[in-house]
């Protein structure tokens, strides 16, 4: 009990804050705001989480959410083309954005002196985005270049795309966030306008502000700049559910390559499901650190893989738990695949020792604190917890959620999801002579 208590106490200070330190308010138009004051450095992280991503798309317009992420920097009414970035950099700030299957997130980092400017510019593009056909054509080229870099000329990228397309047959997680090439080439102005109207309404957004601000000042500016923006009907619900998988699926990609790559995925539940925390523990046991089971077996002992990783998706709808293995030169991917299944079988058949479970939990907890070191890290996690777990304060129960996981849970969850029937295997095979 002592060890446990000590960890809990440490964690509380590690977060630098309790849920009470996060102030939250919802504007009349439905925009939810989370604020955490932190005066360590004179800077602010302001994140906008729009609840729209590739899961809200349809065949023919795949990738439009991601394309839109680019268009949000291409001019609105008060601040024209290039001005968002120009004004922001001139005021000492910089920004980025990312799109996932589930959301589109805009990330602003700036000195606290630029707070009002940022509200003005964010409100402008939330309400009055411009749709210039010339700029749209130019940006299409940029997005295609991004696709060429991250998918077409990236072996893991192209294999992952094929893996998802095979694992999901009905649900929108079937298509890539960046979009199919033919859709990138052909979405229209109307597609973009429709996407903007519902996706970028204030009631479809969560704003997170962490850093050198006061709650009063943020709320004053939010009321002035953001509250007048009218609410809109939200994006229609995603109706399609992925049917249960009834047998193993296998795909191959043949491509010029020096080494093969193997991705093996299992369907797992959505982020909110209680089994998510158990899958996190499984992640740590199997692949976190050089003492993890799969590193020791594949990389160290058998020397059959260059690296092995696992990635448990925390998504709005049921997603994938994916193992990624790079077999060593001359190693048949069938061998690393077989080894993986042996290790999974072991996880299913024998309970973890208390030490191994403790180790996994300690790894998860310290990794969690590390993400909270910066204002940017905290803004991101607060938003993720609000959007994916339905409540930002779950960020502060991460610790308890992890501590609750037992060795029996690990066995049960490993048996439930890591089955042959629920499996999709994608292999990149180096093409002979290329």
């Amino acid at each position, binding site marked *: 009990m002592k060890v446990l208590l000590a960890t809990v106490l440490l964690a509380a200070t590690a977060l630098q804050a309790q849920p009470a330190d996060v102030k939250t308010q919802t504007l009349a138009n439905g925009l939810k705001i989370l604020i955490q004051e932190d005066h*360590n450095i004179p800077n602010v992280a302001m994140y906008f989480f729009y609840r729209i991503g590739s899961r809200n798309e349809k065949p023919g317009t795949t990738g439009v959410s991601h394309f839109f992420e680019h268009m949000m920097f291409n001019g609105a009414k008060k601040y024209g083309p290039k001005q968002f970035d120009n004004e922001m950099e001139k005021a000492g700030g910089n920004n980025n954005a990312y799109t996932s299957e589930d959301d589109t997130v805009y990330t602003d980092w700036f000195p606290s002196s630029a707070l009002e400017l940022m509200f003005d510019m964010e409100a402008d593009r939330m309400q009055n985005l411009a749709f210039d056909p010339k700029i749209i054509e130019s940006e299409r080229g940029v997005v295609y270049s991004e696709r060429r870099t991250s998918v077409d000329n990236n072996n893991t990228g192209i294999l992952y795309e094929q893996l998802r397309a095979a694992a999901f047959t009905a649900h929108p997680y079937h298509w890539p966030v960046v979009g199919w090439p033919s859709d990138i080439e052909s979405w229209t102005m109307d597609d973009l306008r429709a996407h903007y109207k519902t996706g970028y309404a204030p009631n479809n957004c969560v704003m997170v502000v962490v850093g050198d601000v006061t709650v009063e000042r943020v709320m004053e500016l939010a009321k002035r700049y953001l509250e007048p923006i009218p609410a809109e009907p939200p994006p229609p619900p995603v109706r399609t559910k992925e049917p249960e998988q009834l047998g193993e699926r296998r795909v191959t990609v043949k491509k010029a390559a020096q080494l093969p790559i193997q991705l093996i995925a299992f369907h797992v539940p959505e982020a909110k499901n209680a089994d998510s925390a158990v899958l996190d523990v499984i992640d740590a046991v199997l692949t976190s650190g050089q003492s993890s089971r799969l590193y020791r077996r594949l990389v160290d002992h058998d020397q059959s893989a260059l690296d092995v990783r696992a990635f448990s998706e925390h998504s709005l709808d049921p997603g994938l738990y994916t193992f990624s293995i790079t077999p060593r030169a001359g190693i048949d991917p069938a061998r690393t695949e077989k080894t993986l299944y042996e290790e999974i079988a072991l996880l299913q058949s024998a309970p973890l020792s208390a030490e191994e479970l403790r180790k996994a939990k*300690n790894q998860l907890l310290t990794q969690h*604190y590390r993400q909270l070191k910066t204002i940017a890290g905290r803004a991101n996690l607060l938003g993720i917890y609000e959007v994916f777990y339905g409540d930002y304060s779950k960020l502060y129960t991460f610790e308890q959620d992890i501590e609750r996981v037992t060795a029996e849970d690990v066995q049960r969850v490993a048996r439930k999801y890591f089955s042959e029937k629920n499996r999709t295997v994608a292999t990149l095979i180096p093409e002979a002579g290329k």
Partner: protein
Amino acid sequence: MKTFPLILCAVAALNAQVRLPKYTREVLPNGVVVYLMPKPGVPLINFLVVAKGGIESEPRELAGIASVSAQLLRKGTATRTAEQFSNELDSMGGSFRVGDSEQDVTIASEFLKKDFEAGLDLTADAVLHPTFPEAEVKKMVAQQVDAVKSLKDNPQAVIGRYFDAYFYGAQHSYGHPADEASLARLTRENIAAYAKGVYVGKRLIVIVSGDIDPASAGLAVKKAFGEVPSGGAYEWAKDAPVTPGRRLLLIDKPDATQTYFRIAQPGISRTNPDRTTLLLVNTLFGGRFTSMLNDELRVNSGLTYGARCVLDLNREPGAISISSYTRTETTGKAMDLALDVLKRLNEKGITAEQLSSVKAYIKGTYPTQSLETADQLAKVLADIEVFGLNRGEVDDLFSRIDAVTLERANATARKWYGTEDLTFVVLGNAAKIRDSVKKYAPQFSEVSIKSPGFGQ
């Protein structure tokens, strides 16, 4: 009117000079330099151990030895097997990362505050008592050879290796990237001998930062590192400058649908007096989203997802290198455009408005990049020590930025951003782009990505 005073305060805050938090520096009798910097906030502590030397200290034929020997530090010590080490580390949820650069090797570890003693013991054990077991060496070397192969499947990452070899040339300390052949020459004997010369008092810097009590942390660090043999002081390499003149290396990757390119010229060292001005000029030219390069190649023309210019800041003069990528068919167009932007900077310089924007940008972004966390601050201290700088590097940064005039910025731009002495490194489908890139330089070489090595 209500907001007006607030804005004034805020502007004042932006322009206020940032300063390094309090720290101490002490040189132990054996030469180890110890820095202690308390940075409470999160209950984590960081150890950053820096050994002077890095890539420049590698024997040419054993390229990769700095990195491989550093990665092997945890793979067996006088008192721990590799497995025991990993178990102890992971059980605490600690992190242990090694890295190498042109002038040093770094070992960075992080632990919970409560694990200070155990974390220090583990970190010091790896640095001071590695045994390099034969079996672990063999495993690591074989893995690294395969890692080179895997790297060649990633054009964006691998172009940097070809660039180093071609830009600096085999005679230069930075011009010999580790390849399949040099890695295969690594043995337990040469690794142990190399490491014995590196991890010694006169070459080591130990920086402890985070939620520490400086008094007790200082005692513990002195105890752990005070007994290391002092060894010889490190003699920094002295290389001849990079050969000027236009030349082009083409790397053939027949399946590429995109061309990756670099256009580089000789630049400066980390301590060059022009560095602050160049930081401003290079950021405007290719160091931020609205930079001249990104604006022209991405925003205005849609030719690429990104274009930038990197200013190397190492102990010896490095490169100023433009890098971007574009689809195979637009290779010539994108490279021409990059050269146009370079010419424009050289001939027309920058405006007062641009200069004032970039000054605010550097000042506004610096705290989140360098001063927010204990590990960022440790890196700043390491830089100061390795490059022989002082705390003015941070404490005077803003006043040095303020002092840069438009005249000086433009003179510096003309001086360093020329259009003659350019080295081109281009990776793509040679059959389709060979003819269009040959025009850039009289000196042309071509290599297949399938050949071992990096074109040396």
